[in-house]
């Protein structure tokens, strides 16, 4: 306490020093051992009464006895009271606020020379120190350790350029640090670098003291950091041990009865067991052997009624190849051996390679024995079992027995002649109703007329653009045919027609008095050139379909020869038109139709109309103007269709090679689906009088079938494949594009993509 007071009042004390013995005061100071950052400990801590070399006091002071310390102090205090009145304005602030600062003041600022002046206010002498100037030659700057920011948390200044303030309130700047390389070089040079650590206060690396190093070592070794700590101190016994036993009970309560009376409940439990043992319910130390297993006549009792589970299939019995001494032909060749070894074990047909040993003693152990047993067991408990009926029949008995084709003659079986269109595909053909003439059209716009028996071209017409379709009018009293070229249909009378027929035909196609125009104007125009310009080369009648309907790709005449249905494809709008020749009128039967129409057909007997879109065939009643039926052939894209002359059966062919036979009485699904062509079916037709139909395909073949249809509803139609006609070349993936029957004979006319038109005769 004395020191504190002394420190606080140091300035006053110094004022006194002239009057009072200064040396005493000094000595007192030394006694307190005020440690500062300065390293002149020796001076300060020397409490023996030796000579003090305190710079500011040297001139006046002498050594004094120690005893006077306290009295001195008291005197000081007395003086202080007096002083306070004197210079209150100077010191009142300082006195309460910072003791420490003054303490340090006291110790730090002893070096500069103090001047003793007489105070103006009190008229007392007082010591005034000069300002500290941190110059180079000043005392403070020459000192080793300048950082006197005090004991403040250094992290306050982590983000600052300075590290604190000096006594004068000036910033102490952070000393410059070198880059990593410098640091590294410094560590290389300095041998003690690894035992030094960064001191935040000093902002430099400082070597660790030996105590610190020892502490680190201890921590590292997992020892107690305190070297003096003894973990195995002898225990101090407080309540146990000789002479320290607690003899008297803690409480004076009586012992409860249960402590010394045997338990009633325990007795009950034990008695329960005892009784059980007496009665033989519990057998102590039961002999174990009674539980042992022994076989007995398990099947002597009648078995349960439910049937046994199916026995597991037995493994196959070994064959000759498995013998240790098989015939030599069973031994695998080198290639077979290699192939066998290259296969995965599960892909191998046999799990062993046949081997031959000359005698039994040379046969080695089979290395996969255990594994095979294991696999067998896996099969037994992991593999699903399926019961299969083993068919032991001749595979040929599966082929249906059909009448021989030779008994179903006549049918076309050879090519009698061939007519060639030069350099382009023969797209379409038509046979005249009397069966004597054929017209064929190609993609260059050439239509040729030739005789079916001779095969010589009689007449040729050339149009602009592809010929889409050709159709001969089925009427026998007139003679003309329709040609479908781009957006137009031309009606042409062939040459060399009987004059009576010719006049009738001309009157049909170009009557002198035109029928009245329909009430509603039609987009289709019927034009006939004037009669003086008629010739065999030009069409007598032309129907102009609306622009951009595309090529009429399909024609279908009604059996009476008055109506012609045309289907145009490829155009922008396309569509179906029904043209009536006598009335010179065209109408579109459908306002709009779902899907792209591929084909249309008139029913041979009823006023029905078949429309094949890409996937469906719809049957409409034209008289009643309604849909009768939709057939579902299951074909991706229908290519061709024909109706049997009886009108009850329909065949539909598709680009996906399927041919569907529909019995119209029966169902919307096909009665039979055949798939025998290897490429898309292009064309189909029933023979008008013989029980035949033909189909042609892109594989270049024509297939002739016998198709007998019975009037009896119970009997299924008989379809017998008769003949495959080959002879057309495939060009650019296209084969036979169209087949047409000759109406009177069992002859077939076919046009191919190779430009040839062939006649097949029986």
């Amino acid at each position: 306490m004395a020191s504190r007071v002394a420190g606080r009042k140091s300035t006053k004390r110094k004022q006194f020093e002239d009057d009072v013995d200064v040396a005493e005061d000094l000595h007192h100071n030394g006694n307190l051992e005020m440690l500062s950052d300065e390293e002149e400990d020796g001076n300060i801590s020397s409490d023996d009464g030796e000579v003090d070399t305190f710079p500011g006091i040297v001139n006046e002071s002498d050594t004094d006895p120690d005893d006077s310390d306290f009295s001195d102090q008291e005197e000081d205090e007395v003086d202080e009271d007096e002083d306070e009145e004197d210079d209150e304005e100077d010191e009142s602030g300082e006195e309460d606020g910072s003791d420490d600062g003054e303490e340090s003041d006291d110790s730090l600022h002893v070096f500069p020379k103090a001047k003793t002046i007489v105070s103006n206010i009190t008229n007392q002498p007082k010591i005034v120190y000069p300002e500290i100037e941190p110059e180079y030659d000043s005392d403070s700057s020459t000192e080793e350790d300048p950082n006197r920011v005090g004991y403040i948390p250094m992290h306050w200044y982590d983000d600052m350029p300075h590290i604190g303030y000096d006594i004068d309130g000036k910033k102490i700047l952070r000393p410059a640090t070198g880059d990593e390389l410098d640091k590294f070089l410094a560590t290389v040079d300095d041998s003690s670098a690894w035992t030094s650590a960064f001191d935040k206060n000093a902002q430099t690396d400082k070597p660790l003291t030996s105590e610190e190093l020892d502490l680190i070592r201890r921590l590292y070794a997992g020892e107690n950091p305190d070297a003096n700590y003894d973990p195995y101190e002898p225990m101090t016994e407080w309540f146990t041990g000789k002479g320290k036993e607690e003899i008297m009970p803690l409480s004076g309560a009586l012992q409860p009865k249960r402590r010394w009376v045997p338990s009633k409940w325990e007795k009950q439990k034990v008695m329960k067991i005892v009784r059980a043992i007496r009665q033989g319910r519990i057998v102590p130390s039961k002999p174990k052997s009674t539980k042992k297993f022994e076989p007995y006549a398990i099947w002597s009792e009648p078995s349960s009624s439910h049937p046994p589970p199916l026995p597991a299939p037995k493994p196959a019995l070994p064959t000759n190849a498995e013998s240790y001494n098989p015939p030599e032909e069973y031994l695998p060749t080198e290639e077979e051996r290699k192939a066998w070894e290259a296969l995965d074990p599960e892909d191998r047909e046999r799990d062993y390679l046949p081997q031959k040993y000359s005698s039994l003693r040379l046969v080695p152990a089979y290395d996969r024995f255990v594994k095979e047993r294991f696999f067998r067991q896996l099969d037994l408990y992991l593999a699903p079992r399926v019961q299969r009926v083993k068919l032991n029949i001749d595979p040929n008995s599966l082929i249906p027995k059909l009448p021989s084709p030779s008994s179903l003659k006549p049918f076309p079986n050879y090519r009698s002649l061939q007519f060639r269109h030069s350099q382009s595909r023969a797209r379409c053909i038509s046979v005249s109703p009397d069966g004597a003439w054929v017209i064929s059209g190609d993609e260059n716009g050439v239509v040729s007329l030739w005789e079916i028996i001779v095969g010589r071209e009689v007449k040729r017409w050339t149009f602009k653009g592809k010929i889409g379709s050709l159709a001969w009018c089925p009427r026998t009293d007139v003679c003309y045919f329709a040609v479908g070229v781009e957006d137009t249909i031309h009606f042409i009378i062939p040459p060399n027609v009987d004059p009576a027929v010719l006049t009738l035909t001309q009157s049909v196609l170009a009557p002198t008095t035109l029928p009245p125009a329909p009430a509603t104007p039609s987009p289709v125009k019927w034009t006939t050139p004037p009669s003086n310009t008629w010739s065999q080369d030009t069409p007598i009648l032309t129907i102009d379909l609306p622009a951009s309907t595309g090529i009429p790709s399909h024609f279908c005449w009604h059996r009476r020869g008055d109506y012609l249905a045309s289907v145009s494809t490829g155009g922008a709008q396309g569509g179906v038109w029904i043209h009536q020749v006598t009335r010179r009128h065209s109408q579109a039967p459908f306002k709009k139709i779902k899907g792209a129409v591929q084909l249309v057909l008139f029913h041979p007997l009823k006023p029905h109309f078949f429309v094949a879109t890409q996937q469906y065939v719809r049957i409409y009643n034209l008289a009643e103007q309604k849909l009768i039926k939709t057939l579902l052939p299951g074909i991706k894209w229908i290519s061709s269709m024909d109706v049997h002359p009886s009108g009850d059966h329909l065949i539909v062919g598709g680009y996906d090679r399927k041919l569907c036979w529909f019995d119209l009485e029966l169902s919307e699904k096909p009665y039979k689906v055949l798939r025998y062509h290897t490429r898309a079916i292009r064309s189909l037709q029933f023979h008008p009088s013989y029980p035949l139909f033909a189909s042609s395909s892109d594989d270049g073949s024509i297939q002739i079938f016998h198709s007998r249809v019975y009037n009896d509803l119970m009997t299924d139609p008989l379809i017998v494949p008769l003949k495959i006609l080959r002879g057309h070349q495939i060009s650019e993936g296209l084969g036979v594009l169209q087949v047409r029957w000759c109406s009177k004979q069992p002859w077939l006319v076919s046009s191919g993509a190779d430009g040839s038109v062939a006649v097949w005769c029986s």
Partner: protein
Amino acid sequence: MGRLRTKGKAGAAKNFTTRSAAVKKLQCSLADFRRLCILKGIFPREPRNKKKANKGSSAPTSFYYTKDIAYLAHEPILKKLREHKAFAKKLSRALGRGEWSSAKSLEENKPIYRLDHIIKERYPTFIDALRDIDDALCMVFLFASLPSNSRLPAELVENCARLSAEWQLYVMHTRALRKVFLSIKGVYYQAEVMGQTITWLVPYLFTQNVPADVDIRVMLTFLELYQTLLSFVHFKLYTDSGLVYPPPLDTKKDEDGAGVDAFALQNGSRQSTTKASGNTTANVSGKVVRQTIKSIAAEVDEETPDVEMSNVEVSREEEDEEFIPHPSSKDTMTTATLPTLQALSSLPTTLTTNLFSPYVFFLSRETPRSIFEFIVRAYGGRIGWHQSSGSGSPIDENDPHITHVIVDRPVVEKEETAEQRELRLRRKYVQPQWIVDCINAGKILLEEPYAQGKTLPPHLSPFGEYEGAYLPGTANEETDEEEQEEEDEEMPAVDDEGAAVDLEAIVSAPADEPTSLRAAELAAEAAGVDFGTFEAAVKKAKRKEKKPLSEEVKEAESDMNKMMMSNKQRKLYEKMKYSNQKKQAEKTELENRRKELAKKKRKEQKA
């Protein structure tokens, strides 16, 4: 209006359960489920539509019948398995705490399951059991030859050896063996017991090692079942034929390596002696039991419970079987019914089963005794063997009654005394294959081709192959003749080529008409061809011609008729055709190879 149908409440969705669902339902581990499936003979089923069975998911899973799983849920073994799980936990806890006495008492009251009811369920009649005994025999014979180790206790192997010996004894006793086949995998035996053909495979006498990728636990579970099954079957077979089961084991003989002979077949009347012998062994095995229990108690925390249990179970079973205090009420009942059955079984001993009865065989050292002793004795022969292949040989090497010596070593010239020579001349030395071939042929074959040092004729499978397969022996003569012809034909072609060409040209002309044939004959005469060769050429030409004319047409027609087949039929037809063609190709391949080999041989002979 019908009831509304909810999805997944009927049909395949309800009838099938996936494996994971089954395991969840049964509340057991997968290993326990597997064990149950094996023991109960439940296997996965293939639903017709996997998507319907698995709630619309087509992920690959195995399906079981829901009813099968419900049937498993009522299985007493499942209860025992659960008890065992609890027991394993308790035991490991007791051991972990060091409570040895409680561990011991736990171990004493260890849950043990029995398989009797399963045998009865799976095989309601004895015939059912016999029909399914093949795999059991294979396994037991295999395990009898395996070396014992920590996973495969010696008692298990011992029991398997005992069961296999019992089976062999029975087959020998009833002369039930029918066919034997020495294959590269082992020896196939086929026996006929009570009208059932039973085939089993025995590995050759080498130490088999269990590969690492074989799950021995699965095999042991199967073996557990098979041992029980076989012991019941043997019991029935033995008691039906008036024998004591189990046949008492002479331990001394067994130690000397007497093999099958260590067991003595006894008729039912001598039961008291068996009991006595049984009691003596009981003490010994009682100790063994304790030891095993101790060892098991030590093992418990190391091994998984299910494996551990199997070991114990198996060992217990076999110990039981070793010492059966025989007389019981059931036994007397069965013996009372015996005589008629015995008479029945003894009746059909035909001549073929006594094939070797007039002969006495001696096995030389290098032949495997276990195989040939069994075969010869099963066919009524007497057999002796060298001391080195085990004790108890009834016939000495110098016995004058020996008719055949089975040798499997090359001929070695050596000095011999006159006595030896005489002996040698009196006996016939045959290679082991002779015995097997005799049995398969059902008669005594000539010893000459099988004599010592001779190249053996091929050994064929007595089980036959599929119908129409290549038969190595029979097809030879015909084809040989043809070949000869071909070769003969080749010969003149080399001599006078011109004439042969002429002949062919001439013969190719004649059809069936006799006039043209006559003309051709004349032409041939003019060309200077003799009548014999002309006739042969005509025949050949006819043979060639017949085919193309009629058959091709027919083929084309039938090809067209194939168009009219339905899809299903066509697929079936193609499958059949494919498999037939494959078989045919195999056959022709073998035939061609045989021909080539024959040609090569002939050439070598010529050279």
